[in-house]
């Protein structure tokens, strides 16, 4: 069992159409590699994600948007800011650093 099994994950970008979708696909690649089955993985714009974030266990975003999720972070959501939203490697390393992947 991975710590990410049955967790809810959200990827956010400005418009919810470009880089958040890229992040979702990159996350999906990492989850498959580790054979993790999350309860939910979706993407949306930051404007929507800001209030929805606290209902998710993990939120990924380009690092420029991380500050939008301070409240969710206080409520216990793990925020993962990324330099390169397409990098499965960066996502994998970040999830490991948070202790969510072994």
């Amino acid at each position: 069992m991975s710590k990410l099994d049955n967790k809810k994950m959200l990827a956010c970008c400005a418009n919810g159409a470009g880089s958040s979708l890229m992040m979702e696909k990159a996350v999906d690649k990492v989850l498959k590699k580790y054979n993790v089955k999350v309860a939910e993985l979706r993407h949306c714009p930051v404007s929507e994600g800001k209030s929805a974030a606290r209902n998710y266990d993990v939120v990924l975003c380009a690092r420029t948007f991380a500050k939008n999720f301070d409240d969710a972070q206080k409520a216990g959501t793990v925020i993962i800011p990324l330099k390169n939203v397409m990098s499965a490697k960066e996502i994998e390393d970040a999830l490991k650093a948070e202790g969510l992947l072994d």
Partner: protein
Amino acid sequence: MATVLQKIVENHRYCFVDEEMDWKEAIRRGCIPLVEDGCVDPDYYKQIIECVEKYGPYIVFDDYVAMPHTQENAEGVKKTSVGLMISKKIVDFGEDEFGDKKEAKLFFTLAACNPSEHIDNIVQLTSIFTNIPLLEALAKAESGEDILKAEAEFPCEEEE
């Protein structure tokens, strides 16, 4: 099925620019092939510029790649499509708030109104944007044929 790059060439959704441009001009020029092919309205570029002004140059990735876009079902989008502008000069987007220089030569402009086609485009673009030899070959391209040759020479890995 045709790849994103094949569709760009088949539908003439590409252009080349030799002279220097500021980033706003680059976004406007990058939209022109999509305007000419009836994919977006002539004013579509204004929404993209507004987004960058609001959120910063987050549409510029590593390796001189930019992906100008707005949201799905944005106003003025008629066809889900990708356009490619190859700028011979580096376009400067300044620095982001972390002090990283944001520069681009390849502009993959997105228009989206059909979610499944759009997802397919994004998946393929992710493969292109992480294929450095292909990006380098595209930056040197001077014709549609060069674009196709670049892809044939440096194919992207197939997504399962």
